[in-house]
């Protein structure tokens, strides 16, 4: 579905990604783990078109997309829930969700998409007229995911969706992601919450210092001694 080939990404002269090649299959729940500054967020930002690779290719459903602007990539069905959520704080929950369905392809079925989101996050229906900036952290994260779902994504990318949330809310979010995956959605999840993320992953990559150093199924990586030592402290 999505394939990157030898991505080299720089911030000025600082290289953030070195020859990164990953592949997301249809109906995958692919997890990328790594420590702070490993390049996970940079990878998602590059796929979304917010950063341009100096070298390398990104293919989505067989077509090269590395030169395309973010709105065009979004139109293809690659939707990202960014780190820090990036909600529109002075717009209501309804308006935030509407913005998720901004693209004309999504607009036709607005009512159905609203219902789809409310089935997953019923709390959002109760908060429709509330400003996004006044929601709790957990509710904001639900809104961020709900907003992405409004676009009807083919590939949903999530960057640290449980960062700063209580363990209870984080578990709820992971349960919802697992449910979306079971429903046939393709997901690419970046997380530092290694244990929870690998538990629901169908496959996973480990990135360190801008390079992919490991790839395996989620369960296999959970059993890997290096992963256990470096990320789980066992």
């Amino acid at each position: 579905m999505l394939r990157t080939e030898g991505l080299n990404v720089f911030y000025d002269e600082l290289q953030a990604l070195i020859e990164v090649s990953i592949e997301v299959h249809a109906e995958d729940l692919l997890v990328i783990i790594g420590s702070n500054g490993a390049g996970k967020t940079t990878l998602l930002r590059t796929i979304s078109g917010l950063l341009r690779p100096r070298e390398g290719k990104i293919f989505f459903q067989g077509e090269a997309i590395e030169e395309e602007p973010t709105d065009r990539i979004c139109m293809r069905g690659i939707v990202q829930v960014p780190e820090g959520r990036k909600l529109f704080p002075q717009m209501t929950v309804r308006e935030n969700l509407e913005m998720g369905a901004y693209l004309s392809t999504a607009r036709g079925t607005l009512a159905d998409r609203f219902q789809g989101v409310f089935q997953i996050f019923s709390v959002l229906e109760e908060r429709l007229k509330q400003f996004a900036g006044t929601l709790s952290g957990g509710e904001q994260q639900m809104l961020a995911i709900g907003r992405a779902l409004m676009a009807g994504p083919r590939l949903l990318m999530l960057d640290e969706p449980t960062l700063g949330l209580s363990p209870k809310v984080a578990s709820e979010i992971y349960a919802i992601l697992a449910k979306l995956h079971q429903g046939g959605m393709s997901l690419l999840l970046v997380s530092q919450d290694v244990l929870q993320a690998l538990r629901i992953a169908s496959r996973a990559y480990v990135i360190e210092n801008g390079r992919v150093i490991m790839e395996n199924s989620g369960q296999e990586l959970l059993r890997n001694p290096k992963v256990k030592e470096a990320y789980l402290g066992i």
Partner: protein
Amino acid sequence: MQGRQLLVKIRPPLNMLNPIVILQSIVSGLLMGGIFALFGVGFSLTWGVMKVINIAHAAFGIMASYIAYWGLTLYGIDPVLSLCLSLPLLFVTGLLIHRFLIQPITRSRDVVVASMILTFGLAIVLENIMLFAWSPDERLITTAYSSQVIFIGDIIIKVSNLIGFILSLMGILAIYLFLYRTCTGKAVRATWQDPEGAALQGINLRRVSMITFGIAIASAGAGGVAMAYMYSFNPPVHNLWLIFLFLVVIVGGVGSVIGSAIAGLMIGLITGLSGAFFPMQWVNVLLFGLLMGILLIKPEGLFKK
């Protein structure tokens, strides 16, 4: 005796106690505030959404004043009707200026400073075009109804001023409805609040910026025609309006349409009221003293959430 002299010194001027003068000043101030508000809303839009401080904003307004003046004196077209020509013209001009002048500078490290320098140059160009086309003489729009007045009790309202005010309110309402009721308008607000978040929803930031600039310039045109109903104008007068635009936007909060509208009316009201009791130079001292105070206490603006 000394006490009596003191009483005489602190006694307010007679007109300060006259309720009719006060009411008349309030009405005049609000009518003037409507123009401040409409000019301010457009100025605030480009500043908030695009980080572009358009120094030429008021100059576009004066350009529309001249189009209205020309329409009236050459062809007898009512200034309100001239908006049918000047608004689309200014909207398209805004789109073109964005495409060929503003867009290239959005890549610069400091868009605010770059935009100020660029639009400062643009304002000079516009001013000189107007000087060439219409000379530096002051113009005044004089319609058949210019001298007509309405009496509400003892309050006198000039019909032309009322039309200018209604025009301003309609302009603000149109911008409000665009921003809060249309999909593109909501995208403009989203872009202002978080450009990257907006891009990740598939919003084309370049297109949104272009439309915003076009609307802001067109709104300046409506403000210019509204202004021409009330005041005389000449090409350099845009500089004076520009100072008030900064005042409105800083008081109302950058990017806040409702804030700018309220601030515009408020500043008009203060100007009108204080103008009735103090010489004009003291009114400006009061207004800009207020600005400094707001910058010190609430630098994000009074109405910014």
